[in-house]
């Protein structure tokens, strides 16, 4: 398969996937017993007012018609209502949140930096922590190092993230007063504050997620260390660090990268609990808010956006596969 054909097929597949997800999302919403127009009906909510609100927001149509409107909106933009109070949603319009009075596209672009900041740092940290713990455990197999790394990672997987976040805040935020207890400062405003506010969320997320990496890495590493080419690398006189860090690790990384891609992809779509504990208004907070208030357009928008990220991450993982392992190249 030529690279071009491969890329083309893949892009087509990605677009198709997004389409399917969006259809499903709309269909699922139709199943929900809640009428999203209720949200905008006000108090007291008379049936006539409800119908009015429904019609204005376009929820009075069957779900497929709403879906087609949605698709059309991406290309042409959308208008709701008429006159001075009419609402405009410029293309690409991924819906309009009547609750927040803002186009979904704008909301996502607004919140994404927060989530991306949390995700990127945390991911880097946990990859480093997880992989190095796993490597250390594998290299020192059966020793105290191995056991304690694995014990810690067990704590990591079984601890609720909300708890770890809270305790982190209590300890480092209040008792030790080392870091701010929450909030987000845009990088463009103050890089130092940005970093300072993110240290704790990063660490918390990293500690929790590193566990799976540590274990996966350990298992793979033990296997790879038995291969002949490791013996060759040692026979070359390489430092053990290089033998492990380059020759073994490269072969270990395939499953690790897979999980990493997935985790990063879904994390970029919003770290719900972490964002809540640390009072950061990222995509996760936006989504949960939207779910709680049945803000359909926001849910659809954020869902599609995170789906896109996951899909892109998967794509990246596949590319990395062939880069990591020349035998896999198509």
């Amino acid at each position, binding site marked *: 398969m030529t690279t071009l054909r491969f890329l083309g097929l893949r892009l087509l597949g990605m677009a198709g996937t997004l389409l399917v997800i969006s259809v499903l999302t709309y269909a699922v919403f139709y199943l929900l017993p809640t009428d999203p127009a209720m949200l905008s009906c006000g108090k007291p909510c008379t049936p006539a007012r409800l119908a009015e609100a429904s019609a204005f927001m376009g929820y009075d149509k069957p779900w497929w018609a709403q879906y087609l409107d949605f698709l059309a909106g991406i290309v042409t933009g959308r208008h709701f209502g008429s006159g001075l109070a009419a609402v405009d949603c410029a293309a690409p319009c991924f819906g309009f949140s009547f609750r927040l009075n803002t186009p979904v596209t704008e909301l996502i672009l607004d919140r994404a930096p927060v989530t991306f900041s949390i995700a990127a740092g945390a991911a880097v940290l946990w990859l480093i922590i997880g992989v190095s713990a796993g490597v250390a455990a594998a290299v020192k*197999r059966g020793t105290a190092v191995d056991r304690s790394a694995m014990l810690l990672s067990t704590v990591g997987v079984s601890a609720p993230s909300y708890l770890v976040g809270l305790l982190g805040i209590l300890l480092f935020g209040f008792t030790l007063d080392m870091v701010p207890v929450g909030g987000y400062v845009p990088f463009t405003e103050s890089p130092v504050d940005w970093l300072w506010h993110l240290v704790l969320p990063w660490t918390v997320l990293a500690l929790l997620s590193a566990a799976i990496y540590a274990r996966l890495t350990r298992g793979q590493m033990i296997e790879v260390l038995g291969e002949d080419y490791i013996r060759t690398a040692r026979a070359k006189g390489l430092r053990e660090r290089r033998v492990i860090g380059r020759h073994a690790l490269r072969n270990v990384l395939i499953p690790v990268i897979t999980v990493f891609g997935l985790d990063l992809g879904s994390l970029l779509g919003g770290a719900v609990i972490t964002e809540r504990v640390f009072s950061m208004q990222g995509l996760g907070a936006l989504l949960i808010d939207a779910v709680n208030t049945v803000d359909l357009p926001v849910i659809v928008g954020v869902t599609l956006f995170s789906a896109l990220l996951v899909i892109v991450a998967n794509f990246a993982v596949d590319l990395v596969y062939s880069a990591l392992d020349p035998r896999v190249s198509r």
Partner: protein
Amino acid sequence: MTVDVSRHPLRSLTADRWAVAGGVTIVAFLLVAAAAPLLSGLAGQDPYTYDLNAVSDSGAPIGFGGGISADHWFGVEPMTGRDLFAIVVHGARTSFLVGFAATALSMLIGVVAGVTAGYFGGWYDRAISRFIDVMFGFPWLVFVIALGAIVPAAFPKQLLIILVIGLFGWPGVARVVRGQTIALRQRTFVVAATALGAGPGHLLRHQYLPNLVSTIIVYSTMTIPSMIGAEAALSFLGVGVPPPTPAWGRTIGDAVAWAPTDPMFLVFPGTALFLVTLAFNLFGDGLRDALDPRTIR
């Protein structure tokens, strides 16, 4: 040729003290779960009866360590005064059932989907991979809420939970297994088996799977606690085990907010979950090592 008893993986598994400890712990917890009514009966408790005398006016347990006493071995639950020991041992039933069954379900689907996708490649792989993408991108949170509303009340909740987390839990495994399968596909020994005329079934079972067990075991043992955690998340969405049926996930979820005030409320169920997780991981590591012929013992 004689059957090789000495090389049976179980032999080396039993030689691994840590793995044995893990296995024993798992069995112990299984027994506790099975004998839950008996155990809590010993103290004359059940997980449902309120004991408002055991909590203060504001709902906090009275007395040392969250109300630990001869009656309440683990103390009581804040706000209700229900016996925490009874809740923990009864909760083991729900949590084990959910943790095991959901992990088994998602592992089964994930491994089958991943291995076949990696092995067959081509359009099948593309289809599975895109399907995995869909599963990942699907707003399952919302879907679960919808489910809670449309599934008839008569539908057994525990089964529903198992199905929901099992059916949404597999794409991760599938991706990982797929990646490794693709890497294995090029290995000479797999090619050699192909050249012998091995069909897909044989190849998958005898060539791929033995080389994937490590990953599968590690992943499974990691998955069990997260499944138990997912049960708690589902409780919040209204499709979890409905209260007052005890479940670790929900109890721990409730207890987190109480951690600064009544730490024991978290410590007991939390330790139980931690021990089970640890036990599974130790056992899993032992099993992994026992199945790996190159293990240095």
